[in-house]
């Protein structure tokens, strides 16, 4: 017996099966969309906001994170944990994970942070991990402008190294990557970021590696 094309009367169960298949496909698509949408949000809300970065040499800042004009990503990032960003007008925070040449900062190298002072009521330089959190315990290291011995060649001259150094020294862990956070308090810097050149901020020069 040859089965010919399906007759009109035969299509009922097939339509129902087709409808079930469509419903199941739609449910799978919705599930995948939720996973993709929420997953991408979780990925984008990492340690730093995905938008609004301002880069000056190796330093990066997010000036709007401390203002009412913070974008939705920045706001969501702030809402995910207890953050108290410096408000615009209160100060500015700059992060660096690389030296001036773009190489990652690592404990196996020594660096020199060198530059001229910037108008502010005070500033601090701290060593942080790659999540931009201050190191704790014996690894904690930070200094302020008041700790500095000024030199004739530059207002700011700090050796960043795991080995003890003469003059201004900021200790870093012996191995692994790290970051630097430079904060200026009560400074007009945030308002004039657009007019600044990278040379305005301290440079991060690599001195030697593999010591």
């Amino acid at each position, binding site marked *: 017996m040859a089965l010919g094309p*399906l007759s009109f009367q035969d299509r009922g169960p097939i339509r129902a099966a087709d409808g079930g298949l469509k419903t199941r*496909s739609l449910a799978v698509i919705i599930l995948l969309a939720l996973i993709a*949408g929420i997953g991408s949000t979780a990925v984008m809300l990492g340690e730093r906001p995905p938008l609004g970065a301002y880069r000056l040499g190796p330093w990066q800042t997010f000036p709007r994170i401390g203002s009412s004009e913070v974008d939705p990503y920045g706001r969501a990032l702030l809402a995910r944990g207890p953050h108290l960003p410096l*408000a615009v007008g*209160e*100060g500015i925070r700059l992060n660096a994970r690389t030296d001036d040449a773009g190489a990652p900062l690592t404990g196996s190298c020594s660096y020199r942070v060198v530059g001229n002072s910037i108008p502010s009521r005070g500033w601090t330089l701290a060593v942080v991990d790659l999540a931009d959190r201050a190191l704790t315990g014996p690894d904690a290291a930070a200094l*302020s402008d008041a*700790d500095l011995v000024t030199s004739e060649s530059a207002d700011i001259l700090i050796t960043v190294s795991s080995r003890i150094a003469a003059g201004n020294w900021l200790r870093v862990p012996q191995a692994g990557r790290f970051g630097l956070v430079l904060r200026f308090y009560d400074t007009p810097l945030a308002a004039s970021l657009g007019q600044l050149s990278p040379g305005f901020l301290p440079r991060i020069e690599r001195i030697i590696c593999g010591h």
Partner: protein
Amino acid sequence: MDIDPNPLAATPSTGSARRTTHGLCSRSGLARLVHALALLGTLAGIAHILSVLLVPRYAVFDAASRFLSAGADARAELVTPDGNGVSPILDADDLTEIAVCGYDLADGPLRVSARAGTTPLAISLHIRGGGVVYAVTDRAAQRGVIEFVVLNRQQFEERAARDDDGDSQRELRVVSPALQGIVVARALVRQPSDRPGAQALVSAMACGGAG
């Protein structure tokens, strides 16, 4: 029993007809795949945007939510590191001292006042769900005191309507877009000897009802 393996091709079957049918099937399959991917992309985009916007709304881990009950006795509460020296604030500068007061404008406006000292001091307003809406430094202190009133829009308008001539000039009014938030006093510790003074300065911030 003869069963035609391809009922769709039960009509006079020639090579070209089979190719056409096969082409139609694959084309409709491709169209279905494109539709499914477009639907997936659109829904994922919607889920992404909604999740980014909803994170601040339902935030429970942000700084304002965490410290909402701080300063219940109308005096700012010092934010202290835990036993391991880890600050509860993710982006804290170890060379600062911070004290906070939580507020809920449903209980009425809040009057904030702090005395300027020898170390740089800033006061900022962080709303629940993330975002800084106001900041002032001790440079703006009048006779050594920083003072302002935090209100919501309705309270601001009611107060303005009650004002006698000149009342509005006597107090600084800050409108908070959210009912709940925290007032943050932050003082810079430029030298270790500054720390006790900085702690006393930020802890002395008063934040009581403004009537």
